[in-house]
């Protein structure tokens, strides 16, 4: 092999690769409008992109997984949190997170209401881009898709005496250990059925033909399924056997009546 032939190899292979790359770039231009909902790309979204750039968001956060790793990915944030929350958060992040507890805190950027609306429009548009299935599982800012997965976290303490809050804490405490079997994430069946949307499901169940319990409303159904799990049995390999629920049947004795009230109040919020 001579220098002449290696040079020819370099020139030819580079030219072929560059040509393929350019051809695919042209094709990408053709297909990108459909993949990114370009119809929805209005002046508001473009203004929001400018806000995104102006405040250097990319040097802490990732978007579409690209950026810096100091703060959470925001690809799906508009779909996860909604405009109302994001507006309040951007006004004052320190209301939601604490530097003492979380070690990091987003600076308050003093955005105008208009800039906030613009950047939310931009993030909403981004959340609808066809990302070829990425991320394969939702990336959460805080908490966990699986209750109890956050090991080592301090024992949950109720933030108020609100029954719903007390119920939330009781649900994830052991005893009674509800969260050991029931997730509140859709489709995540640990061993018992997921309780995502249980308030809505309960209202439907008591109207079903095969329901033989005493409950008249969703609250009644949830209470009944805690104190008498066999009143209505869900079939599933880990839910029941021989028509009997596998859930402990003694919560009527081990839980105080007010605790049951609180757990019911909490589960009723899962619509």
């Amino acid at each position, binding site marked *: 092999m001579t220098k002449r032939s290696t040079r020819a190899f370099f020139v030819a292979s580079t030219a072929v690769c560059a040509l393929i790359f350019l051809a695919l770039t042209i094709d990408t231009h053709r297909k*990108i409008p459909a993949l990114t909902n370009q119809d929805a790309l209005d002046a508001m979204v473009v203004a929001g*992109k400018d806000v995104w750039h102006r405040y250097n*968001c990319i040097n*802490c956060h990732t978007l*579409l997984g690209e950026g810096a*790793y100091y703060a959470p990915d925001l690809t799906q944030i508009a779909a996860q949190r909604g405009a109302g929350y994001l507006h309040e958060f951007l006004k004052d992040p320190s209301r939601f997170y604490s530097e003492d507890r*979380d070690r990091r805190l987003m600076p308050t950027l003093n955005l105008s209401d208009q800039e906030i609306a613009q950047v939310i429009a931009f993030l909403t548009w981004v959340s609808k881009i066809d990302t*070829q299935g990425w991320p394969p599982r939702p990336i959460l800012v805080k908490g*966990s898709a699986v209750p109890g*997965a956050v090991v080592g976290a301090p024992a949950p303490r109720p933030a108020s005496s609100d029954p719903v809050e007390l119920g939330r804490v009781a649900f994830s405490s052991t005893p009674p250990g509800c969260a050991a079997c029931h997730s509140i994430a859709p489709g995540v069946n640990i061993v018992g059925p997921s309780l995502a949307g249980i308030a809505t499901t309960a209202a439907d169940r008591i109207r079903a033909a095969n329901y033989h319990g005493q409950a008249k409303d969703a609250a009644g159904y949830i209470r009944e399924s805690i104190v008498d799990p066999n009143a209505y049995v869900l079939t599933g390999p880990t839910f029941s056997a021989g028509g009997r629920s596998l859930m402990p049947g003694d919560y009527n004795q081990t839980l105080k009546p007010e605790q049951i009230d609180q757990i019911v109040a909490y589960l009723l919020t899962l619509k």
Partner: protein
Amino acid sequence: MRYSSQRVAYWYFLVAVLLFGLQVAFGLLAVAKYLGPDPLRPWLPFDVVKAIHTNVLLVWLLTGFMGAAYYIVPEESRVDLYSVRLAYVQLVIWTAMGVAAVVSYLLRWTAGNKLLEQPYPLKIVIVVVMLMFLYNIGMTIRAGGRLTTTAGVLVAGLACTALLYLPALFEFQNYSLSIFYRWWTVHLWVEGVWEMIQGGILAYLLIRLSGVDREVLEKWLYVVVALTFISGILGTAHHYYWIGVPHYWLPLGAVFSALEPLSFFGMAVYAYYAMRRSGLTHPNRMALHWTIGSAIFSALGAGILGLAHTWPAVNRWTHGTMITPMHGHMAFFGAYVMIVLGVITYAMPGLTGRSEESRETSAGFLAFWLQVAGMFGMTMAFAAAGVTQTYLERILGIGYIETQLKMQVHFLMLAGTGALFAIGVALFVWDFCVLAGRPVPVARLDGLAPARPLA
């Protein structure tokens, strides 16, 4: 050193080395913020520190590349530099641009596009400076009437660097499209034309340090550069997996990214072959360390650690986690930092009019080993953090904040090894600025014979 005009390289190297120190200082600041809480947050938040850390890196590496070209091209073309004055004017404007960029980030004036944060007027200055540089180098080669393959590859790499910066001047309304073209600059720089620059400098250093026949080394240089472009151009696809572009970029990225280590291994084998032939006899042992180090570290950092997460089925879980800086830090250090420090170390005895032996210092060697050890430890810390983050946050679905709290121990390790690295950098700066001596006056130079005969 054979031509007095090569002396401009010293001042380019000085600016590069000082900015290297600044870059690493901001790196330490960044890891302190990862440990948190951050008392500087109201005045100097993380985003500003990160932008300065990455931008100063790009500026100082380019300064080093340009200095290397000003040192290498006159020697290769056997003629004085076309215009020494133009080279100095260029350096002043370039340095002013770098300083202005840092100040503008501190004042929160930014284009906010990752790695291309430079405000628009500064982007124009970058283009102008690159044109000044290419004109000066082009006229030098023309005056000499001799263009070696080594100089040709180096200069072509720098010319393509300027060309590929042009997409950064355009504004795209569609964010996906703006990311698409951002990688034309960033990826095709670091996994394309900068490898050409690395290859050119490596070839030059190996010709000088090993004494292997130029024809043989230049023949294989073409093969190394060909491998770079075969894998690198279509390897851009690994940045296009999840950004809203068609699906065919996934299989394309998988295959061509898997080929990317070849070019880096090619360079490592290339250096090994040259050193085997010569038996490592060159008296500038510090330059030998950096040169061989570059070939090995870029094979590890850019080759293997890049490959570790470019396969789409892996990347869908690791994308946007600490796995990326694991690869990024070692790749940049191995491929570009070490080769620039190598060429600086090689050129210093000539620039300062000292013999190779008297130039050798223990501080210089310690700088090498501390940087190597520090960067190795940092890479391990990033890797541990990245694997933790991938499993907890991405696979188990635990929240970002809880996961980051679980990664604190890795950030501590990062801070420790980063401090080790920073000491190595400080020693290099001290060695360069204090121990190495000043460049010799022009009058004395022209009578000096080159330290070694030209190959």
